[in-house]
């Protein structure tokens, strides 16, 4: 504990929050990574697998690598080979994907052809783990021997924010439920062990779903293999709740209505970065002054709680964002006007000291006003509103057993396939599977309009549980028992998590809410209706490490001390669910605070897309 507090997260102050200092985790990874690359001596060039640059950007800065660790160049891994450089070492940092191995081999052979004065050493680092198949492939390609070493770097949960960790494994749902590949679950279990080593063994473990069970099993085994060696730390996390995405497939399909959720839905947030069209972000003055044409490159923004205003806005329903922004704008103008009131030198001094902060706030206000305008353009469009209306009808269970006229129109208008599939999947879930006639109708329409290739897409959706044949009625029961539909929800000052979808409360978060209070025993019936087994486990904590508390056995102690629950979403979590959990954490009677870990951040479009048969994008009707 003492050492833990001493550590300061370097360059990521927003990760230190009162509940759990995730800076420690970031520092841990960062240290391991530096150690890994420092093993080769001399100047180096890092060759990055494209999928890794984002995640690594969150734990180490390029400038730091350059200045302190002799990393002279950074390249992107591509089959065209490496640009020439004079470094002594070349380190490939890649995910264990077979396709990448061929690219690496190509690069190595190219380098050897080139020759050169300086003899280069090659290294290979797999993230997060070596793979037998990949190494075999390299041997087959005849380049395995060229590597001075082959290492692995175990990057697990990457801290995104003070209450959010993500493994950034975008295809984990697809891998588990479509390809029967549970490797990502192994990594999840492994990263949970890392977390426990840093923050203490988590005493109570709950879970729901097949994958959750598997992760808990693996954790138990890993613990056994450690031979009874426990991290000697007082547990900082009280409960662990592992939720399988499979348990609640409806939530990620619905259109999120929080500020951050909408940004993600419309512009895709990737590794907390978002790229936006640049026109909105050029101020009037700049427009006048600059003679050059306006920038056409998308502008990149980092979205996390380091930005005070964003921290406040992100979880609000979008309908409440406008009011907050204009209120903030007023206060900030008022504060700037104080300088006129400042008479004495002391007052002036005080104002000047506040100035940098004020300027920051003003800049971020400008940015978020522009982003909100961009979002509003979309949310005001007919397409968005009609689709939202359709979704709400479906979640209310209205006419879900018939062909939905709006979906039919969407197909006729040849709207994006993922939007159509999203709506059909929502209907399938809300109706506990579609009637054969309805399903066949949709299938035929989709195949005829979007191409026969999508037979594969449809079969993928069926296999992974999004489209189902008609089965026993459960949705209505779950909806009523868990109060998933909340009428007249207050979007400005919410009193229920349902505000994040303007009237629909995500089932996953309801499960977390019920677990905290009054406990899962009250909803046994619902739990039995949901797919997959239920897990409840207690990990014994040595006496000396237990939190001092009146009764350790009761999981709902009414002590004043706030408890901390880690919710781990296997297969992804949406920004809106995060918002709902953050909302719960702020409630006085919630009983617990939350930190969220996830395999990846999802939204409906990306989730469906990952299951779609990839076809070269062609314009549907070019004639």
């Amino acid at each position, binding site marked *: 504990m003492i050492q833990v507090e001493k550590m300061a997260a370097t360059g990521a102050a927003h990760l230190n929050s009162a509940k759990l200092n995730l800076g420690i985790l970031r520092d841990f990874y960062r240290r391991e990574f530096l150690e890994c690359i420092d093993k080769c001596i001399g100047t180096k060039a890092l060759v990055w697998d494209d999928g890794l640059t984002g995640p690594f950007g969150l734990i180490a800065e390029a400038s730091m690598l350059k200045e302190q660790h002799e990393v002279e160049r950074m390249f992107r891994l591509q089959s065209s080979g490496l640009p020439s450089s004079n470094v002594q070492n070349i380190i490939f940092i890649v995910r264990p994907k077979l396709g990448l191995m061929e690219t690496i081999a190509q690069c190595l052979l190219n380098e050897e052809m080139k020759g050169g004065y300086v003899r280069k050493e090659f290294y290979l680092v797999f993230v997060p783990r070596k793979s*037998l198949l990949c190494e075999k492939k390299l041997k087959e390609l005849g380049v395995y021997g060229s590597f001075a070493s082959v290492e692995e770097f175990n990057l697990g949960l990457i801290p995104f924010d003070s209450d959010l960790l993500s493994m950034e494994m975008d295809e984990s749902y697809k891998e588990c439920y479509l390809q029967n590949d549970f490797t990502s679950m192994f990594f999840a279990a492994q990263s949970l062990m890392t977390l426990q080593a840093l923050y203490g063994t988590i005493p109570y473990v709950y879970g729901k779903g097949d994958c959750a069970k598997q992760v808990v099993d693996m954790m138990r085994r890993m613990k056994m293999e450690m031979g009874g060696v426990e991290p*000697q730390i007082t547990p900082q996390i009280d409960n662990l709740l592992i939720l399988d995405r499979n348990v609640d497939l409806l939530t990620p399909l619905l259109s999120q209505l929080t500020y951050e959720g909408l940004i993600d839905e419309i512009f895709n947030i990737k590794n907390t970065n978002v790229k936006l069209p640049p026109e909105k972000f050029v101020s009037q003055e700049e427009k006048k002054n600059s003679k050059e044409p306006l920038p056409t490159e998308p502008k990149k923004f980092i979205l996390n709680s380091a930005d005070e205003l964003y921290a406040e806005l992100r979880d609000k329903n979008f309908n409440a964002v406008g009011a907050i922004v204009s209120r903030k704008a007023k206060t900030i103008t008022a504060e700037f006007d104080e300088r006129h009131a400042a008479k004495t030198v002391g007052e002036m001094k005080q104002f000047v000291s506040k100035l940098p902060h004020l300027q920051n706030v003003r800049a971020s206000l400008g940015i978020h006003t522009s982003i909100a305008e961009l979002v509003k353009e979309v949310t005001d469009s007919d397409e968005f509103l009609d689709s939202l209306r359709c979704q709400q009808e479906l979640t209310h269970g209205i006419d879900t057993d018939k062909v939905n006229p709006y979906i039919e129109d969407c197909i006729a208008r040849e709207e994006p396939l993922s939007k159509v599939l999203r709506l059909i999947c929502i209907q399938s879930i809300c109706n506990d599977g579609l009637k054969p006639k309805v399903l066949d109708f949709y299938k035929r329409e989709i*195949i005829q*309009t979007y191409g026969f290739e999508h037979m594969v897409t449809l079969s993928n959706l069926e296999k992974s549980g999004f489209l189902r044949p008609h089965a026993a009625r459960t949705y209505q029961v779950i909806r009523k028992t868990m109060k998933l539909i909340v009428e007249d929800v207050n979007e400005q000052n919410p009193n229920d998590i349902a505000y994040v979808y303007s009237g629909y409360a995500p089932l996953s978060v309801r499960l977390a809410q019920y677990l905290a209070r009054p406990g899962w025993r009250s909803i046994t019936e619902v739990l039995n209706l949901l797919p997959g087994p239920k897990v409840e486990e207690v990990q014994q904590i040595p006496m000396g490490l237990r939190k001092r508390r009146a009764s350790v056995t009761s999981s709902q102690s009414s002590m004043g001390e706030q408890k901390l629950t880690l919710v781990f979403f296997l297969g992804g979590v949406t920004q809106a669910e995060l918002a709902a959990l953050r909302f719960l954490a702020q409630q006085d009677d919630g009983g617990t605070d939350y930190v969220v870990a996830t395999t990846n951040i999802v939204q409906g479009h990306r989730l469906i897309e990952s299951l779609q048969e990839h076809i070269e994008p062609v314009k549907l009707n070019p004639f």
Partner: protein
Amino acid sequence: MDDDDGASFENAGKRGRQKVNIFDDNISLDAARTIIKSSQIEDEDEDDEEITFDGKPVVKYTAKSSSNASKTPMPDLSSLAVPAVSSTSRTSSNPPTTSSSMSSSSSFGGVNSAMTFGHSRSQSLTLGSSVNIEPRVMKPQFVPSPMSSTTSLEELDDFSHGSKRKQMSASDIDKMQQEIQSLRRSLLGAKRDRWVKLPVDDTLRRIMKGEGYSLELYRSLEDKLELLDKAVRLHDGNAITAAVLFLQSTVTKTIFNRELLCRPQAADHYLSYLKAHFDFAEYINVLVMLGRTEEAAAFKFKLALPTTDVGLKISKLKDSLRSHFSADPHLSQESSFVQEYIDLLERQRPVDESDANLEATGRSQMFRDIPRKVSLIGMPVVTTLYYCCLYHYDLSENSLGSPAAIKKRHQISDKQYLWTAISARAKVRHWKDIEIMLTTKGWFGGTKMKSVIGFDKIVNILHRNSAPPEILEKYLSLIDDVETRIELAKKVSCHKAIMDTYVATKNRPELEAYATKFDRYSKEGLYAHDILNSSTIRWK
């Protein structure tokens, strides 16, 4: 963090020397022996070298000025590792950690202890340096050794702050000597293990940690199956793949298939191996053998998709239909789709060919007005229908390009057909065709306008194809719901329709308000004026 690799990193420090992994299959016993011998010696004297050669200026400085100081932390750390390292014998009884993330120095296994040495040294390096002081503190918590108690933590803390650096004592040197001894022993052990049949658990652990291993000593089927079953139970992909491939290469096909059948998880890994190695024929065979015919069919279908040559694609699809889809009664719907796909391609090919020729001659007015943008081949059914409505609307049903024939063959719904046909005919501005399409015979020989998709949608389609106002007016007037009609008329800015609607609802104030928008003598203004002055209308 794997031991082997650490070792090779060390070796890499010596330029130009080849990487050695004594556990590699391709290194002979003798070679391994020499490597071990030489690397032992080198490891010893390399110790100082490495520090001085290390790129870090800070470290270099420490090493030179006070080599003691830079070394002192080492015994401490190695002492952390010693209990594990020296207990090569213990490893079998005490299953050590496999989760490598837990132990940054996974020295716990202790077999390749040459590396443990290397690792702890690299730790001491950073420890001595003052750059990364604080993070270092966390380290010991990851060494799952009983020694990592609070006391040693405090000691480390002291070191890292450099407040009181201990001098190297005789006992420290002793400790190091002991460690070297134990490392030698374990290296010998490792060498010996190469030829000893290790317990299955140990081998699996080695696989999981990415260490060297050999499976060839498992000769009996029971051993092989035990290996596989335990690997499956551990949920470790690498281990399962290794075990299943070993089984595949050492037993007959019949036995392999039999065992695979009752181990679905192993089968999955074998399948993904086959897929990754582009052994598609075997991949499909195994799927069929496992009774997963649907997947086999889907995969065969997927393989046909990227083919660019139509003829080849058709024959591939036919092959998949014959060998997989039609063989399985559960796939009847899918097989009818595949058949349709084949028919569609077979229809597209001649149509596309003849149209391309016609276009090339430049004699057809149609293609000069609206040139074909791309080839028709590979387009979805609805797009094909659109194309045919565009260029071949008047063909009779028995020719390939006829829209009616496409509708019939692919069971296109009336709505979908109407939607597509209207869009296409609107594009070529044949309003008459649209009228005919929407006209139905009434009861007594009269005609009536009727549409299956709602006239509001038809107006939208027409508007998108920039139909003239007269046409829009005509269809707007057919919308029953007044409010929709006004809203839509406003959207497509069809003023006459709006005014007519106000007349129909006898809403004079609205009409008056609307009329003010126009110039008195414009076309719309005059029209509004006429209506307002008309005495035949009874306003509300």
